[in-house]
């Protein structure tokens, strides 16, 4: 379970988050939508403990990530997967080595077991045959799929997706969303997807939250948001038609 309690954050005097609170239940997937530059990615980085809030806290399965350090933080993060907007693949490594990296560094699996596991994950994201290429040699969509395979290789209990389809053509974007859904069916993780993919995202999430002006302005199911009469929600949805 992911809980955010009254989160405040400002940068150089600009208040980005003004008391954000919400919960994501076990095995649930929440879509976090909102205008660009309104703090969605900042919020996501707080959830991963990459940024410290000015006030408030983030609880992952009841543990406040902001107050953890060292081994305790590393252990909690090991249960968390994060798909970065740009993929954040290690550009000096092949796609295979990128996906294998967490297993090599964090487990005692032998090379044969690692190879089996990596090829399985690469097969899941339809990348068999490209494993010896470097990130710079493949398309943005392929990079996203590799990043997804790397994020999922340790079978995380919680997954955070930072705009997984940004910069991709609609077909590739749809493929990525389908992959995320398939991975959720397989691993049953608790997830948050920061996205602009409206309305396509509604098909694969349980709930939707709209972040605007530093606060969650709306929270509900995809059907709730479609039926909402809130002018802000309507304006946002219509702007995405």
């Amino acid at each position, binding site marked *: 379970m992911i809980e955010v309690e009254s989160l405040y954050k400002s940068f150089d005097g600009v208040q980005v988050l003004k008391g954000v609170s919400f919960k994501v239940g076990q095995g649930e997937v929440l879509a976090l939508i909102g205008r660009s530059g309104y703090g969605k990615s900042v919020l996501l980085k707080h959830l991963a403990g990459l940024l410290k809030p000015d006030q408030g806290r983030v609880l992952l399965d009841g543990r406040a990530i902001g107050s953890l350090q060292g081994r305790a933080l590393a252990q909690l993060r090991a249960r968390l997967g994060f798909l970065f907007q740009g993929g*954040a693949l290690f550009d000096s490594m092949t796609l295979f080595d990128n996906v294998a990296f967490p297993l090599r560094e964090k487990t005692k699996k032998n090379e044969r077991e690692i190879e089996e596991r990596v090829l399985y994950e690469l097969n899941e994201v339809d990348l068999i045959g490209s494993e010896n290429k470097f990130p710079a040699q493949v398309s943005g969509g392929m990079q996203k799929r590799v990043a997804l395979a790397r994020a999922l290789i340790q079978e995380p209990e919680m997954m955070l997706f930072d705009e997984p389809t940004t910069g991709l053509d609609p077909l590739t974007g749809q493929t990525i969303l389908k992959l995320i859904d398939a991975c959720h069916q397989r691993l049953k993780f608790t997830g948050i997807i920061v996205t602009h993919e409206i309305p396509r995202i509604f098909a694969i999430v349980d709930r939707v939250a709209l972040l605007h002006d530093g606060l969650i302005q709306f929270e509900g199911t995809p059907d709730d948001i479609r039926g909402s009469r809130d002018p802000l929600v309507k304006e946002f949805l219509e702007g995405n038609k």
Partner: protein
Amino acid sequence: MLTVTRKMGRFGLKKELRLGRMGVFLGKSFFYLLTPPLKLRLLLKQIDFIGYQSLPIIFLTGAFTGMVLAFQGFLSLSRVGSEAFLGPLVGVALITEMGPVISALMVTGRAGSSITAEIGIMRNSEQIDAIKLMGLNPYRYLVVPNLLAMMLCLPLLAAIFDVVGIYGGYLIGGKLLGLSSGTYFGEMAAQVDYKDILNGLFKSLNFGVIIAWICCFKGYYTGIFTGQGAKGVSQSTTQAVVMACVLILVWDYFLTSTRLFS
């Protein structure tokens, strides 16, 4: 007036924060260096990059430094009729000063700048965050291998620089200006103390720490203490090279004035 004072105070606090971060960064680097696990494969890769691949530039600069020293030294010594002391002059100057300092400056320009740029790009493209989110410690992958490789390679590179420089000096003093090899090397052996060698190697070890510290720090904090994107990486790289070179020269003065092994 109050605004000016406030601005000065803010500037002072910013600088203090940065210095504090640098100190903590160095402390953490040594802590992770002294505690397992050590990433051996990365260490060997950095030894190859910092040490082995720096050899051509060390040979070249070492040879020419020795040759220039011999030329200038011979001209100065011949005015007082002491050409016989050319060997000790070249030897002591290279072993205690020129070798450690110039080799460190060369490594800063060749390897240090590259380390800053690489880590800076990793910061920009969120690769460092990715390492953290895997529950791993970025210091062990990005800082410790560079620090240890610098500490191992710099004294060796300086020693090679010294030897090549001494032979470069002999080429000029002996082969061109007519000094016998017995005079050049014999006087050098008599005058150069093993403490000079220890002082030179100790300086190189210090410079290795300085280069790794500054260059890794500047790369690691790209986008935080410098601008974002490509400009941030370029600013970090420039700052790293300038700061490391200045610090090497300042620290060299302190090490020379204290002479630990004397």
